[in-house]
C-alpha cells in the first residue's frame, strides 16, 4: 500500500513538473511580451530565470539591460550591457544602449589625460576588441614568419621582403600590445557598478572612515581589493576609496 502511494506521488510530481515546466524559448518569448506590455519587472524576472537555468548568451544580457533601463535601474542596466559585451564584444546594440545607460549617471568623472600621445594610444588600442587584435597579430605574425623564412633562405636582406618584414613586425608588436591591454582591462581587471541611487566612497573600509565622495547609480570602477563588507575601488580619474559591497554589482 505504502509503495503504491509513493509511486502515485512520484508520477503526479513528474506529471506536474512536466505540465508547469516552461522551456527556455517560451520563457524568452514571454519576457519579450512582458517587455512590450511595459511590465519590465516581469521581463527582468524572466530573463534572470533564463540565466539561472544556465541559458546564457549576450542577447539575454542585452534584453535584461533594456528591461532594467526601462525600469529605471540604470546601474543594473550598465551591469547587464557590460556582461553582454563580455560574451560578445561585437554586439553593437548592447554597446549603443550602454552609452544611453551611462548618460543617466550623474557622476561625470573627468579623466585627466596623459597628453596627446596617451590619448592617441588609448584611441588606437580601443578601436577593436581583444579577439580582433589577436587575429591581426596572428596574421601579421605568419606573414612575418614567411618573410623571415624567405629572407633567411635567400640570405639577401637588402630587398623588398626585408622592408615588408619590418612593417609586419611593427603591426605584430602593436596588435599584441593592444590585445594585451584590452585583455587586462576587460578580462583580468574586475569591474563593478554602483546599483544604489547614492553611496559613500570612504577613506577606509567601514562607516567610521571619512567620506571622500558620494557616488551615484551607474558609477563604474575597478575593484582593487575587498575587506569584509567593503570593496577597495578606483575610479577612472585615479581616485581610490572604499565602498559598501551591498551597493555594488561585480561585472
Amino acid at each position, binding site marked *: 500500500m505504502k509503495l503504491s502511494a509513493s509511486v502515485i506521488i512520484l508520477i503526479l510530481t513528474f506529471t506536474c513538473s512536466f505540465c508547469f515546466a516552461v522551456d527556455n524559448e517560451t520563457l*524568452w*518569448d514571454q519576457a*519579450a511580451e512582458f517587455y*512590450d506590455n*511595459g511590465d519590465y519587472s516581469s521581463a527582468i524576472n524572466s530573463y534572470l530565470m533564463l540565466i539561472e537555468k*544556465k*541559458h*546564457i*548568451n*549576450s*542577447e539575454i544580457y*542585452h*534584453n535584461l539591460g*533594456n*528591461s532594467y*533601463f*526601462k525600469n*529605471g535601474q540604470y546601474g543594473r542596466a550598465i551591469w547587464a550591457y557590460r556582461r553582454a559585451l*563580455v*560574451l*560578445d564584444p561585437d554586439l553593437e*546594440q548592447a554597446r*549603443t*544602449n550602454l552609452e*544611453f545607460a551611462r*548618460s*543617466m549617471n*550623474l*557622476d*561625470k*568623472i*573627468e579623466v*585627466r*589625460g596623459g597628453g*596627446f600621445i596617451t*590619448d592617441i594610444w588609448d*584611441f588606437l588600442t580601443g*578601436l577593436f576588441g*581583444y*579577439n580582433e587584435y*589577436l587575429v591581426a597579430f*596572428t596574421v601579421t*605574425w*605568419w606573414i*612575418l*614568419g614567411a618573410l*623571415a*623564412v624567405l629572407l*633567411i*633562405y635567400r640570405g639577401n636582406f637588402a630587398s623588398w621582403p626585408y622592408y615588408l618584414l619590418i612593417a609586419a613586425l611593427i603591426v605584430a608588436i602593436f596588435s599584441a600590445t593592444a590585445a594585451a591591454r584590452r585583455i587586462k582591462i576587460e*578580462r583580468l581587471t574586475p569591474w563593478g557598478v554602483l546599483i544604489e*541611487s*547614492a553611496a559613500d566612497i570612504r577613506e577606509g573600509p567601514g562607516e567610521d572612515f571619512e567620506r*571622500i*565622495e*558620494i557616488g*551615484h547609480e551607474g558609477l563604474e570602477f575597478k575593484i582593487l581589493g575587498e575587506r569584509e563588507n567593503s570593496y577597495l575601488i578606483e575610479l577612472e*580619474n*585615479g*581616485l581610490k576609496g572604499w565602498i559598501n559591497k551591498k551597493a555594488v554589482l561585480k561585472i
Partner: protein
Amino acid sequence: MTGKRFYVFIISFVLLLAAPAFGLSISSSVDRDVVELGDPVTLSVSISGEGGSAPDPVLPDLSDFEVYSSGKNTSISIVNGRFSSTLELSYVLVPKKMGNLTIGPIRVKERNITVSSDPIRIEVKQAGKIGQSPGTQRKTESIKVPGRTENFFIEQVVDKRRPFVGEQVTLTFRFYGAERLWEQPDLDWPEFNGFTVEDLPPINRYNKIINNKRYGVTEIKRALFPISSGEIIIDSPRLTIREDIFDNFMDPFNMFGRGRRRARSSGPKILTTDRIKLNVKPLPAQGKPGSFAGAVGRYTIRAAVDKDSVGIDEPITMKVILSGSGNIKSLPAVSFPEMPDFRVYESGKTESINNSGGVVSGSKTFEQAVIPITSGNFRIPSIEFSFFNPDTRKYQTVRTDPIDIIASGEALADIGGTPKNIIGAGHKSFAYIITEFSKPEKQLDIYSSAWFWIFQFAPVGGMIVAVFMRLRNRKMMGDRAYARRMSAGKKSRALFKSSLRKKQSGDVIGFYGELYSAIMGYVADRLDLEQSALTVDDIKALDRLDAETNSRLVEFLYNIQVARFAPGPNSASGMDRAVNEASELLKCLERKL
C-alpha cells in the same frame, strides 16, 4: 575607424587643446584691514577650478610682513556632471612697519591661463593706537581683586548662565602671568559633556594690572552649544606651567670665587579655577512649527538651480543654502518637497563656518540633483525651514521662492519602447530587445585556446628550419667533399631511375652503363674520389668497407661490366637481378659509407 568615431576623436582633440583651466578662479581676503604694528593678520586665499587639483598660487612680494603658512585645505567634488576642486590656503602675516601696506595680486596659473586676485590694503598703526576692537587691543587696565596675589592664575567666565538649548554660550578662558615662564604652558580643556563646541579664534593677549601687579593676559574663547536642558556643569580647565627660576651658584672655574645667577625650570604646576554651573532652558513648546527640527539661531534660506531649462533626463543641480549664526554644523537637513516629475539624487552637503567676532556663523548648503522624467513646465515648491530665535525667544519660519523648470525633449527610457530606428543619420537610437531566440553561448576568448598558441609556434618552426637550411647550403658551398657526400644519394638515385628507363626501352648497354655509374658515382662521391679514374681494382683496395660488402660490390661491378660489354641470352632476367642487387647494394652502401 567608423566615421563617427573619427569625428569624436577630432572634436575631443580640439577640445583638449582649447579647454585650458576652464573655470579657474582665485579670491583673497584678510580678517582685518587695520592693525597695530606686530599684530598678526590672517590672509585667506581660495582657488577653485574644474579638475582634480587646483594649482598652488604665486604670492606677491610680502617683504613688509613676516609670513607664516597656517593651513591648507583641498576639497574635490564630482557632483552634477562636473569634477571641480577648491584649494583654500591661509597665511599669518605680521607687519614689520607702520603705514599703508599693500598685499599685491596673488596669481595662479594653469596651462596658459593666469588669473589673479585683487590687491588688499592694510593700515598698520602704532601699537596701542587702535580702539577697542576685540582681538586687536593690547591695553592695560588696572583693577583691584581682593586676595589675588599669586604670580600665575587662570579664570573662566561665560556670557550667559541661563541659555536655551542650542543657543551659543561664549566661554572665555584667561591665563594671567606676572612672571616669565620656562616654557609654553600646556592647556587641558575639560570634557564639555552636554555641549557641542566650536573654537573662537583669535587668541587675545593684553596686559592687566591687578592689585598693583602687572599681568600678561592670554584670552581664549570657545562657543558652547548646550545639547539638552537642565543643569550642566563646566569643569575647570587645567593649565600646566613651569616657572622660570633664577638662583645663585658657585662657579668652580671662576677664579675670583664670586657666585653667578642662572635660570632653571621649576617643577610643573597645575592651575585650575572654579567650575561654572549653567541652567539650560528647554525650548518653548508654544508656537513650535511643524517643520521645526531643532535649529536654534538666526537663519535665512534660499534655493537656486544651475539651469531652469533642460532636456529630459538632463540633471539639474539644486542647492538650498541656510545662512546665519548658530550651530551651523548641527543644523538639521532641510526637507525637500515631493517632486513626482523628477528623479531626485542626494548630491551632498557642504558647510562654511566663520568663527570670527566671537559668534559662530556661516552657511550650510544641501545639494540635490533633480532630473525631469517627462517634458513640461514644472514648479519646485518653496522649501521651508523653522528655527528658534533666542533673541526674540520665538520660533521663526523662513521659505525659499518656488523655482520654475522647463523640461523638453523625449525621455530616453521611452525611446526603446517600440522597435524604432527613426532618430536619423549620425545619431544612434536606443536599440530594441533582440527577439530571435539564440542558443547559449560561451565566452569567446581565442587566447584561452591551446590551438591559438600552437598556431603561434608554426612561424617559429619555419624560421628554425630556414636557418638550418641556410647553414647547410653555406657549408655545401664552401666544402666540396661535404657537398659531394650530401648529394651522392640523390645523384645515384637519378642514375638508377635513368637505368630503369633504359631497361624498359630495351637499351641493355645503356642500362648497365647507368647502373654502373650509379654505384661507382655513389662510392666516388661519398669518398670524394675522382669517378673517371676509379676502377674495380681501386674498389677492391678500399679499406672503408668490410670484406663481405667489398667483395659483393666488386663482384656486382664485375658482373655489370661483363653484361654491359658481353650481353648473354637471358638478358631480361639478368637485368632484373641486377636492378635488385644494385638496389640492395645502394642501401648497404648508404649505411656503411
